[in-house]
């Protein structure tokens, strides 16, 4: 058994496909990005090595910092709006028995299975000043003005609303699963001690959900950082880069502004930021709390 399980040739054949995919689709492009990041390549013609020029430009690029700020805002939106609602809804849903529970869970998750392409265009219509749903809803509540939701001042909030709305079901489902995994005996004990449902939620559900919350918050921060698709279709970073996100910005620089080299430099910094944030969240911040 031992001999067979340490046969080098067999091991190699088993990991080879995975390694090839990794090398070809992830490692090679990253290396290429690093190379182009040091050039002034426009996308066509010749690439000239310019050293750290792109990175120096990036260090003073306010649009890039706007995009990081927007990611931060989005993460805050996820954590302070989406997640608290998701936890509360999950807790209520947990107490609900029978058909209603399944129905609500299904309804909450439906937006998640719809393509971002559809979601983005649908919300463009919802925000439409002429026939959009949102202004009509406000009208139904008696507000008479017409709000331009995608104007320079409002656009970032409009983007945040779409993303919080779209991802709600996913977050809710994870919290719901976490709550379902809590031992019911604890609830019974709390009930015998005369605890009301608010106290039970605060003293039992929330503390026991801590690991789930940590995982969910980590994923939310990372997805806020990686956000691109919705913004690309909804506002494409505009108006005036107010809703810019890093991934969208590097794409624009490479394919619209023909600064392919600069786009790649942004890509490299973007990858580093994602790696650092992931490692920090997983190993430093949350690990310490557990100890």
């Amino acid at each position: 058994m031992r001999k067979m399980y340490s046969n080098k040739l067999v091991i190699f054949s088993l990991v080879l496909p995975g390694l090839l995919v990794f090398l070809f689709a992830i490692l090679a492009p990253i290396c290429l990005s690093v190379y182009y990041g040091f050039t002034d390549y426009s996308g066509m013609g010749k690439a000239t090595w310019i050293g750290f020029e792109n990175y120096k430009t990036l260090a003073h690029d306010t649009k890039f910092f706007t995009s990081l700020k927007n990611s931060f805002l989005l993460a805050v939106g996820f954590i302070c709006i989406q997640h608290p609602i998701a936890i509360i809804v999950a807790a209520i849903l947990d107490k609900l028995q029978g058909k209603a529970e399944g129905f609500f869970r299904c309804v909450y998750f439906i937006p998640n299975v719809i393509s971002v392409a559809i979601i983005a265009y649908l919300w463009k219509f919802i925000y439409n000043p002429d026939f959009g749903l949102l202004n009509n809803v406000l009208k139904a509540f008696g507000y008479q003005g017409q709000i331009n939701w995608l104007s320079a001042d409002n656009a970032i909030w409009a983007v945040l609303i779409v993303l919080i709305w779209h991802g709600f079901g996913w977050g809710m489902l994870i919290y719901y699963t976490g709550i379902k995994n809590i031992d019911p005996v604890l609830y019974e004990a709390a009930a015998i001690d005369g605890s009301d449902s608010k106290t039970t939620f605060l003293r039992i559900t929330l503390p026991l959900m801590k690991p789930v919350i940590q995982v969910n918050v980590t994923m939310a921060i990372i997805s806020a950082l990686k956000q691109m698709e919705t913004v690309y279709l909804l506002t494409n970073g505009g108006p005036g880069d107010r809703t810019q996100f890093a991934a969208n910005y590097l794409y624009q620089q490479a394919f619209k502004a023909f600064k392919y080299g600069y786009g790649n430099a942004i890509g490299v910094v973007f990858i580093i930021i994602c790696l650092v944030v992931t490692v920090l969240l997983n190993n430093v911040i949350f690990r310490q709390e557990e100890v």
Partner: protein
Amino acid sequence: MEQAGKKKHPISKVILFIVLLVIAVIQIFPLIWLLDFSLASSNEMFTSGLLIIPEKIQWGNYAKAFVDGNFLLYLKNSLLINFLAVAFVIVISIMAAFACKRMQWKLSGLVQTLLLMGMMIPIHATLLPNYKIYSALHLTDTIWALLIPYVAFSLPQGMFLMGSFLESVPKELEEAAVIDGCGIYRIIFIIVTPLLKASITTVSIMTFLNNWNEFMMASTYLSTPKWKTLPFSVLEFTGEYSSNYAVQFAVMALTAAPAVIVYIILNKHITKGVAMGAVKG
């Protein structure tokens, strides 16, 4: 839990139910609105009401969306690419997970970390260089331009889930198989794989959900309709019919339909799969 419920006043129960209902309406009403407007004519849209009752239901919107949106071709492409991606992810991740978790070799930890690294890399940072690579290799506008990145970015999660399930599979079965003279590949695919059924379902669902709606890579690497996927029905349409809103609503509803219908039918399995994947991951 039951006792806690009984003690509460019925009023607070009603309030909680209303909370659920309000959020359900927020989540689903935009989609109902979409469906409603897709059946009206463009002229009827400029009302101040929330929903329209169309004078005549405009099935023609859907006919136009179906034909001009290349619906069937793009649906076929989406299905084919996604099924292939799922198949590749499952086979490759089982093999790699088995090698890293079960086999004895020095570099297993390193290779595993390397393969899982893919989870941390932002997909969109690879758009630019991959475009160059695929152009140079003449892979743009082929199925590989989608298949390779789709497999690559779903593989880490697949491997992670397979690995963590594999740890709960008892080794005794394999030992018995070895004594019976079973080779490694047969052990993996005939003995171990059936035991991983639950994680295979989860990985399939996660991979499908990840890739079914993807369009950023598709729109970067593809320029001809040959391999374009379902989201393109919507993307291309809005340009072509920019003033005919009703038809745009129809194409969105039509494109969303396959996933929503499948989700409603398989709702229980999918939520279970996602929950399992997300909690483990």
